[in-house]
């Protein structure tokens, strides 16, 4: 409850700063939606020109994009700013100030760092998911709708865990940016059905950097596809995988903070 109030206060401050830069906020939201939209549209056109991509139709591939962007936006809304500026917080001494506050530093940074730039991501990805289902003539039952919400939640936790885990090492290894490779770069693989890659890549994306749970596995549940590359049960695993990873990420964060407090005097 205490955190909720704190959070509302932060939101109020942030919104007032948007209002004062209203022009660039709107221009930015439109430009970002255009950029993502152009990418989605291009892929849709391309898969349509070839009729299918490894057994997936253009609208089915669109669902992969929609799920990925929606869950990314949810995660990035809370974690992107904090993760990106963590090394600056350490170098500039800002982290010390956070650690002396009488609140959980993790929650404080999430509350303070939330990024309002994701309005366009959320609207565009919602639209993409709707277009995909409409294009395929799929009507979700209430149960499936619930599964969709839970899967997106799980996927957002996977994104969040990846963002946290790749940024924590920058607490002690300054200027070491792991997220560039391990998150941004590796995530490109899930733009397309991962069944089109070699077996070893499928294995990595499922068991080592489990980004395939963000869209590839859950999408099959809603599309009624059977492109199971390891086991059909993986379709339901997004939320558990997300919770598990987030737990690990949080512990890793705590480890990073303890280590920081241990050495920095």
């Amino acid at each position, binding site marked *: 409850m205490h955190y909720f109030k704190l959070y509302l206060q932060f939101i109020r401050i942030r919104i007032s700063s948007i209002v004062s830069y209203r022009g*660039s906020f709107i221009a930015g939201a439109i*430009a970002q939606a*255009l950029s993502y939209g152009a990418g989605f549209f291009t892929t849709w*056109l391309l898969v349509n020109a070839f009729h299918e*991509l490894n057994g997936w139709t253009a609208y089915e591939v669109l669902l992969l994009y929609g799920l990925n962007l929606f869950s990314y936006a949810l995660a990035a809304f809370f974690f992107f700013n904090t993760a990106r500026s963590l090394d600056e917080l350490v170098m500039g001494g800002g982290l010390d100030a956070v650690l002396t506050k009488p609140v959980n530093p993790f929650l404080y940074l999430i509350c303070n760092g939330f990024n309002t730039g994701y309005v366009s991501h959320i609207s565009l990805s919602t639209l993409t998911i709707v277009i995909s289902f409409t294009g395929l003539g799929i009507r979700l039952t209430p149960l499936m709708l619930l599964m969709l919400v839970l899967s997106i939640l799980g996927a957002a936790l996977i994104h969040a865990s990846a963002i946290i885990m790749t940024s924590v090492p920058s607490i002690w290894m300054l200027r070491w940016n792991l997220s560039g490779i391990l998150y941004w*770069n590796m995530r*490109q693989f899930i733009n397309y059905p991962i069944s089109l890659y070699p077996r070893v890549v499928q294995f990595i994306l499922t068991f080592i950097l489990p980004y395939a749970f963000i869209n590839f596995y859950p999408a099959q549940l809603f599309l009624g596809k059977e492109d199971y590359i390891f086991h059909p049960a993986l379709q339901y695993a997004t939320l558990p995988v997300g919770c598990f990873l987030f737990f690990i990420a949080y512990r890793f964060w705590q480890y990073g903070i303890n280590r920081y407090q241990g050495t920095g005097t």
Partner: protein
Amino acid sequence: MFTALLKLTFIRNFQYRGYLIINYIAMITRLFVEISLWWALFRANPEVKGTTFHDMINYLAITAFLGLFSISQAGYRLSNRISSGAISTDLIRPYNLKAYLIAQSIGENIASFLLYTLPIYGAVLVIFGIKLPYDPLRYLLFFISVLLGGVIYFYYSYIMGMLAFWLQTTWYISWAEDAMFTLFAGTIVPLWFFPEFLNKISYLLPFRYITYEAVAFYLGRTELSAMQGVLAMQLFWIVILVFLEAVLWRKAQKKIMVFGG
């Protein structure tokens, strides 16, 4: 001075070897995803719109090579200098800011071409096979088109950078640009895969004349006789952009003087 600057930028970029491995991993994974995509697409139908997998590999590689001419941070640097105010000292120094930025771009491009593009895409072409046109005239016109495309891109990005004189923030320009390039420049997907209406729009914009037309010509998709029209359009855009740049620069200088009082 121009060559000295060029050399300096080149050397500096060559020195950043710490990022070398990371950049290699990043570029190779991106390329791997791209090649896997085209491989999977062409597996079901080996030829679509007169294009084979082999053509696409060459398209990707040659477009990447052309980054040597058609990538420039000049506009971005200019807009940073404007936002930070460094532009005011640039203007009183006895050098030509534009020439300085061009030299920097060329130095950077040569360094990244030698370090990354050439080895990575060279390997791709060795593995999958390079396509070479027979007609020497084709090479000549290709190179002319490439150079004109490079000039178009430089002026385009420079003008975009200049917008910082009038806008409060400019970070979103690159996002909008990204959309334009995806849809109308053929840098990610060749324009011949796109429907008619998108192609019609692309003829009204400068983007397809940066690299797309040159690569399409290299791959033999454009007849020799049709290339005159392409080169004429490229010249047309250069004239327009050079003129626009001059007009905007004059306006910007006035604006600086007003504020400088």
